[in-house]
């Protein structure tokens, strides 16, 4: 048993870190967040060249065929760099949904271009009620047309097509379809834009009449948690650096235990989130019986931890932490948006409870956990 990264996994993580450091430095993040869509075509084509747009998808559809642990590592590094734009919505979310439910023909039509980096896509899930329980979906298609609205749709304005969750099926809507109106929502996270999407007699192609998105959403949820880990890591690094250099009362503030112990807690929270995310990635890859529980554990813990790590990071930076020019708030904003996306900690605790408490023998929490 080896709960550490293999050589090839280390290599992937390392090269992703170097790639993002070179192609997506803080200045680029700040430039893109001031644009309408936070999308940059040149950056997208470089992501494609790295094979990132097809990372977990089968080679027959133009993907790279790597596993979920590798996806976690890539997303961790993307999160550390605060990668702006539609990578999550296109590759992780729309890609996983298509991979899970689409027919071979639809995969060829929609998933393959994602892998090849030719299109951007997203999934429209939430409605005005903002419930992550899909049973609360009200939108419904009639005669191949959609009328209604979706809220909080990530990167909709830059998407070439939208996958739409409706009561009576899963649909694809082309961005140029008639009766489609996309208006920006002003979200806290400046690097991942959110939109209201309105349909009025909008033609939609059915992907599936009945569908189970739970596994695809679990992949997306774990990937978001992985991004949060990267954000925590970066926040920890800059905060520790600041605590070493900032002097008050003639000493580096990191010498004071009130500061040092907060840094230690940031480390504990970051590392524990990372353990939970890696385990979730592995459980998803292995299709293990506790995969759903493991994903909820990771999202629950990382959602709370990212906020706490951000709180501590800002506090330790003092006045500097409260300024616009310091990057810590950019991670803090992303952390808040990702905390609520795909269910916050309270949502996932209830999911864990239903998996663990409501099962007669508590078997969802595998009796052996890591060891099988």
């Amino acid at each position: 048993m080896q709960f550490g990264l293999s050589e090839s996994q280390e290599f992937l993580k390392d090269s992703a870190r170097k790639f993002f450091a070179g192609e997506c430095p803080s200045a680029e993040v700040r430039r893109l967040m001031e644009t309408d869509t936070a999308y940059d075509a040149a950056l997208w084509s470089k992501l494609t060249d790295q094979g990132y747009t097809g990372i977990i998808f089968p080679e027959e559809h133009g993907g790279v065929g790597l596993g979920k642990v590798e996806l976690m590592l890539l997303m961790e590094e993307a999160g550390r760099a605060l990668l702006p734009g539609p990578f999550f919505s296109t590759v992780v979310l729309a890609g996983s949904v298509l991979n899970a439910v689409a027919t071979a023909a639809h995969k060829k039509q929609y998933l393959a271009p994602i892998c090849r980096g030719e299109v951007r896509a997203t999934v429209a899930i939430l409605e005005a009620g903002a419930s992550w329980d899909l049973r609360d979906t009200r939108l419904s298609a009639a005669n191949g047309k959609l009328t209604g609205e979706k809220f909080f749709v990530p990167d909709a304005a830059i998407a070439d097509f939208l996958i739409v969750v409706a009561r009576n099926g899963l649909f694809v809507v082309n961005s140029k379809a008639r009766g489609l109106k996309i208006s920006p929502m002003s979200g806290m996270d400046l690097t991942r834009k959110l939109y209201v999407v309105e349909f009025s007699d909008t033609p939609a192609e059915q992907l599936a009449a009945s569908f189970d998105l739970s596994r695809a959403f679990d992949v997306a949820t774990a990937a978001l948690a992985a991004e949060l880990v990267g954000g925590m890591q970066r926040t920890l690094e800059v905060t520790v650096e600041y605590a070493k250099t900032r002097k008050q009362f003639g000493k580096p503030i990191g010498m004071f235990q009130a500061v040092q112990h907060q840094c230690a807690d940031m480390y504990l929270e970051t590392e524990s989130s990372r353990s939970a995310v890696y385990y979730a990635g592995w459980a998803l890859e292995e299709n293990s019986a506790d995969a759903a529980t493991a994903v909820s554990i990771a999202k629950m813990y990382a959602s709370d931890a990212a906020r706490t790590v951000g709180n501590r990071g800002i506090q330790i930076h003092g006045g500097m932490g409260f300024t616009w020019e310091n990057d810590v708030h950019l991670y803090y904003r992303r952390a808040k948006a990702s905390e609520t996306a795909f269910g916050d900690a309270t949502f996932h605790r209830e999911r864990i409870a239903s998996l663990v408490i409501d099962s007669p023998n508590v078997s969802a929490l595998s009796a052996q956990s890591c060891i099988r």
Partner: protein
Amino acid sequence: MDLNLTAEESTFREELRAWLASNVPKDWDEWREKPMEESFPYLRAWQRKLQEGRWAAVSWPEEYGGRSATLMQQALFWEEMARVEAPPMANSLGLGLIGPTIIAYGTEAQKKRYIPKILSAEEIWCQGFSEPNAGSDLAGLQTEARLDGVHYIVNGQKVWTSYGWVGDWCELVVRTDASAAKHKGLTVLLVDMKSPGVEVRPLRQMTGESEFNEIFFRDVRVPVENILGKVNDGWNVAISTLMYERGSYGARLHLIFKRYITRLIELSRSIKRKGLPASEDPIIRQKLAQCSAEIEIMRYNQMRAFSRITATGVPGPEGSIQKIFWSELNQRFQQIAQEILGSYGQLMAGDSHAIDKGLWSYAYLRTRGNTIEAGTSEVQRNIIGHFVLGLPRSY
């Protein structure tokens, strides 16, 4: 990353499972409630039996009677022991901490003299480290040893000594050079607890029981051949013992915590809140889920740490997050148990209305010690701050 067992790990576990199936005592439940003074011969016999199967000290090198088990195999060992609810071993400090230190620092004569009797539980060992004025600042200890011919004369006091009352031998840290810097003047002595001038007193703790002792040394004569390691190099020897402490203890906690949370969830189904089982109360569900999740994460952290040690060869200071994680989690966990049990949570052993024979009231009090023993949470945070994150030393 591959969490499946390797062939060697599977074989190890299968062999152990088969051995435990036919050897683990069936009557431990009758003994576990009794005071340790009464059950101690039973625990000695159990350890002897384990050693007959070469299972008492799996981490030790084969030449000293162990199995040269990897860390993962050690983790498997403790999991299996917890799974079958095996009794503890009588000489747990000798096997876990002191034996490995003697193997690392002892002379051939010392190894030959002490190691076999540690394994057979014939000689029980205790640890003389903490003092009334040297807890977190262990290097500030004052028990002194003065050379007198071929003996050291030891004077001083130790505290928080587990197994002191039954100890035959003690790994004792003493000051041999008062003029040196505090870390430089220490030496480790192997002390016969039956020596004249050794007095052991029970230390009653807030739970009402006495797990620990105070030991007083008055002009105790210790032969110079009982020095472990080198004179004035005792700090390194002692630190090595403490590293074993952090490495081995965590492995068995996960299944113990899991057994507790499973039982608490079971109890929550029969305890009523507003006419419904507590397990259906949304707030209780949130708390039980949080706790269950953190118990799993404790396990993930541990496996990651073990993998890192396996790869690099040494336990790193990252192990400090484990100590903080489990001890603070255990305190939150027992508070949740108290909330669920309500008024019954306070009932102590012996009360006919107590739930689970007073287990929960005891655990609630006992967990207060978790963030203090084996390195306080504050010291652990200093270790992370300085040694892991590279912040300047705060003290």
